[in-house]
C-alpha cells in the first residue's frame, strides 16, 4: 500500500511545477488576448528564444540560443545558491549581494593579476566564489552563533554589498567615467570569437562550463557526500541532526558559505563574460530574487534548478522578440510571476490533479492521510 502512495506522492511532487508552468503560460496567453494580440505570436517568440527557429516567418537564428544561455547562467547559479541554503533549512535572500561581491573580486583579479588565460580565468572564478562565500559566511555565522535570522542579515548585506562595490569601483579602481573600470586584459575574458561566430554574434561565452560544473557540484555534494547527508539532515530536523552528533552550527555556516560561492561565481561570470570591465550599479539587478524563483520552481533539486533557470532565461531573452512582434515585453515577467505563484499554490494544484485523476487519486490521498494518522500514534 505504502509503495503506491510514495510513488504517487513523488510523481505528483515532480508534476506540480510542470502544471504550474503550463498554467503560467495559459494565464500569459489570456493577458495577451486581453491586450488584443494573438497569443500564438507570443509562443512563436518564446520558441524563437528557445530554439532560434521562427515558425511564423521561417528562418533560424542561433543568436537567440546564445542569448538564452547568457540570461540563464546567472539565475541558474543564484538558484543553486538559494536552493543549497534552503536544503539546510536557510533562506538565502542575499544571493544578490554575494553576486555583487563576487563580481567585485573578479574585477580585482582581472585588473591586477597578469597571467595567461588558462590561469587567469580559473583564478578569477575562484576569487568570485571566495568573495561570495565570505559574504555568505557572515549571515551563516550570525545565525549559528547568535541565532540572528538570516533573512534580515542577508537583506541588509545586499545593500552593503552594493555600496562596497560602487565605492571600490570609483575609489580603488579609479573609474574615469564613474560607471566602469578600465577594460580587462584579454586573458581575463570568458568571451570567445568562435562561440560568438557559432551563435551569429551573440554574447555567448565560456561561462556555461563553470555553470554546468556548479550544477553537478550541487547535486554531488547534497546527494552523494557525507557532508551533504548531514546538511540535509539539518535542513529537515535540526534536533534530530544534533541528536545524531552532527555539527549543526558548522553546517549552517558551511551551507551559507557554499551558497555564497555559487552566487559569487555568477558575479564573476557576468563581469568577465557578459561584460569586460567592472561596473558601478545604481540598484540591485534582480538576480537574487530571480534565484529564489528559480530555486522554488526547480524544487531545490539540481536538475530542477537547471530547467527552471533555462525557462526563466528564455522568458527574459524572448522579451525583445515579443516586443518586435507587437506584444508587450512585460508579458514574460507576468508569466514568470504567475509560475511562481502557481508553484506556491502547490496544494491547490495537487487538488486539481486529484480532481483530474478522479476517484482513484482521491482514495490514495485518503490513505496517505490515514497513514500519517497511524504514524502519529
Amino acid at each position, binding site marked *: 500500500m505504502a509503495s503506491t*502512495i*510514495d510513488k504517487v506522492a513523488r510523481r505528483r511532487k515532480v508534476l506540480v511545477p510542470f502544471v504550474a508552468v503550463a498554467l503560467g503560460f495559459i494565464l500569459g496567453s489570456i493577458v495577451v488576448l486581453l491586450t488584443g494580440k494573438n497569443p500564438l505570436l507570443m509562443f512563436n517568440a518564446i520558441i524563437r528564444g528557445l530554439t532560434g527557429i521562427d515558425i511564423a516567418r521561417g528562418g533560424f537564428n542561433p543568436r537567440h540560443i546564445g542569448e538564452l544561455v547568457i540570461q540563464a547562467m546567472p539565475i541558474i547559479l543564484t538558484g543553486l545558491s538559494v536552493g543549497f541554503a534552503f536544503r539546510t533549512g536557510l533562506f538565502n535572500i542575499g544571493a544578490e549581494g554575494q553576486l555583487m561581491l563576487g563580481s567585485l573580486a573578479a574585477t580585482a583579479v582581472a585588473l591586477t593579476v597578469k597571467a595567461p588565460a588558462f590561469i587567469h580565468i580559473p583564478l578569477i572564478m575562484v576569487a568570485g566564489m571566495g568573495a561570495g562565500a565570505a559574504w555568505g559566511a557572515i549571515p551563516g555565522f550570525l545565525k549559528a552563533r547568535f541565532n540572528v535570522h538570516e533573512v534580515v542579515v542577508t537583506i541588509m548585506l545586499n545593500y552593503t554589498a552594493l555600496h562596497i562595490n560602487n565605492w571600490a569601483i570609483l575609489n580603488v579602481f579609479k573609474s574615469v567615467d564613474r560607471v566602469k573600470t578600465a577594460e580587462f586584459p584579454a586573458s581575463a575574458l570568458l568571451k570567445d570569437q568562435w562561440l560568438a561566430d557559432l551563435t551569429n554574434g551573440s554574447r555567448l561565452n565560456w561561462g556555461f562550463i563553470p555553470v554546468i560544473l556548479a550544477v553537478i557540484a550541487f547535486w554531488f555534494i547534497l546527494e552523494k557526500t557525507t557532508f551533504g547527508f548531514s546538511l540535509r*539532515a539539518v535542513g529537515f*530536523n535540526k534536533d534530530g541532526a544534533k541528536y545524531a552528533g552532527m555539527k549543526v552550527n558548522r553546517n549552517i555556516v558551511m551551507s551559507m558559505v557554499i551558497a555564497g560561492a555559487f552566487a559569487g561565481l555568477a558575479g564573476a561570470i557576468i563581469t568577465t563574460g557578459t561584460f569586460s570591465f567592472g561596473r558601478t550599479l545604481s540598484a540591485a539587478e534582480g538576480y537574487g530574487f530571480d534565484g529564489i524563483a528559480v530555486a522554488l520552481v526547480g524544487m531545490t533539486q539540481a536538475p530542477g534548478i537547471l530547467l527552471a533557470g533555462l525557462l526563466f532565461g528564455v522568458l527574459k531573452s524572448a522579451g525583445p522578440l515579443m516586443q518586435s512582434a507587437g506584444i508587450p515585453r512585460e508579458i514574460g515577467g507576468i508569466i514568470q510571476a504567475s509560475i511562481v505563484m502557481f508553484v506556491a499554490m502547490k496544494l491547490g494544484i495537487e487538488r486539481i490533479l486529484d480532481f483530474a485523476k478522479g476517484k482513484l487519486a482521491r482514495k490514495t490521498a485518503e490513505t496517505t492521510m490515514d497513514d*500519517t494518522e497511524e504514524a502519529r500514534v
Partner: protein
Amino acid sequence: MAYIIEMLDIVKDFPGIRANDNVTLQVEQGSIHALLGENGAGKSTLMSILFGLYTPDSGSIRIRGEDVRIADPNVANELGIGMVHQHFKLVHNFTVTENIILGLEPHKGLVLDIRHAAAKVAELSKLYGLDVDPYAKIEDISVGMQQRVEILKMLYRDAEMLIFDEPTAVLTPQEIHELMGIMRRLVEEGKTIILITHKLKEIKEVADTCTVLRRGKLIGTVPVAGTSEARMAEMMVGREVSFTVDKGPYSPGDVVLEIKDLCVRNNKNLMAVKSLDLQIRRGEILGLCGIDGNGQTEFIQALTGLAKIESGSVIINGHDITHLPVRQRLDRGLGHIPEDRQRFGLILDFKLDENLVIHSYGQPPYSHYGVLDFSAIRKNADRLIKEFDVRAGRGPATFARSMSGGNQQKAILAREIDRSPEAFIIAQPTRGLDVGAIEYIHKRIVAERDKGKAILLISLELDEILDVSDRIAVIYGGEIVGVVDADKTDENELGLMMSGSIRKAV
C-alpha cells in the same frame, strides 16, 4: 436493548488493503464502549467513517435506530456526534471560550457576545466537573486542560455521542485518572462514549463493553466486566501475550555509567536537575521514574550532550564525558533512545535506510573519503529490518514519516542496539505503542542487559519501570529521592516517593 450507534457490516477499501472488513459496531446509549486494536487495525478508519471523513464502500449506519448517510463532519455534528482528536485543534493565543465558540460565534448585532458564551462554558464545565477557566489562554494551560477544552467544544455543540481518539496518549498518570472520572461523569449525564485505545488498563477501568479489531476484521464484542486483560490482549494481538518480562538472574558488574553531583538548568534558566548522583552497573537496568516535568528531560539531554551541564560530571568506563560533544560521547560507548522519537530519534523526511546510519554515515563501509556508499547503506538496512522485524511498506526506501509509531521505534532500537553501546540511555521506549510492540521492545532491552550492558531506563509508565528494571530510582523536583530494588517495592511506595512524600536512603 437500545443502540444509539449502529455501524453494520462496514467495508472500506484503500488501494491494496481492506481497512475495514465487514465490521459491525453497536453502541448502547449511555455506555462507554471501547474500541480496541493495534496500530493499523482499522479503528481510526472506522471512526472516521462514523465522523463523516470517509464514506464506506458498503454497509450501513444507524443513529438512534434511523438509517443515516454521514457525508461529512457537519452531518455528524448535526446528529450529535463529536470527536475529541488525539492532537488537539486549538488556537494557542485564544482563550478557552474563544476556542470553543470558533465557527459558531454568538453575536448581538455586529458585536461578538463573549460573555454569554463564557457563561455557558462555565456552566458546562461545572456540570461535568471539568474545572476549566473560560477566560484562560490555551498557551497557559496544561495538556490535560487543553483536552478538556476539546471535550467542552463538543458539549457546547450539544454532542450526545463522544468519540475519544487515544485520549490518554498525551496525558500524565494523574491526568489520565482525572479523565477517567470525567468520562464517568459524562455517561452519568446521559452521554455515550466511544473510547479508541490500545491500553487494556484503561478499558478495564472505565469501559462497559469492548469491541476488538485486528487487521481490519471484527474479532468480537465482549462485556468488559467478564473478560480478563489477558483475554482482550489475546483477541487484539491474535496470540497469547506475556505481561511479565522474562529476565535472567540479576548479577551486576562494575560501574559503567557514573553521574556525580549533576546540575542542569532548563530553558527557563531554572535549576531542573539538582546535585544528582547515580551509578549504573554492567548487566543491570536502572529504572528512573517520576511524574512528568521533574527534570527527566533535562537529565536525559545533559547525559547525551543535547543540553549544557551546569556542574558535576558524567563518567563512562572511567572516561569523563561531561563536556564532550554528542559524537564523542557516542564514540565513548553511549547509546541513546530519545523520549521524543519523531523530534530527535528520526529524520522523518529521510528514508529508513538513511535513518539507520544517522550516526555512522561518516565511517566505512557507509562512506569512503566523504562519499556515501548507498549500496552498503541499503545492505545495512536490509539486515536490521530483518533482524528487528521492522515493517515498512517499501522496505529500506520507505520514508520514516510514513511508518507507524511502533515501527519507527523498532527502527531506532535496531540502530542503537546495533551500535552496541556500553551505557544505554533509553527514554520512554514504548510510549504510544501497542501491546505486541511493547512486549518486543522490552524483550530486546532485557536482552541487552543480559549481554552485560548498563541500561538507564526512563519512563513515565510505572508498570514498565516495575516490570523491566532491576533497581528503581525516583526523581522528584530534579533530585533523586530514593533508590530501591525493583522486587522489594510496589506501585504504592513509588507513588509516594514520586509525589515527594517520602524519601528512601540511596
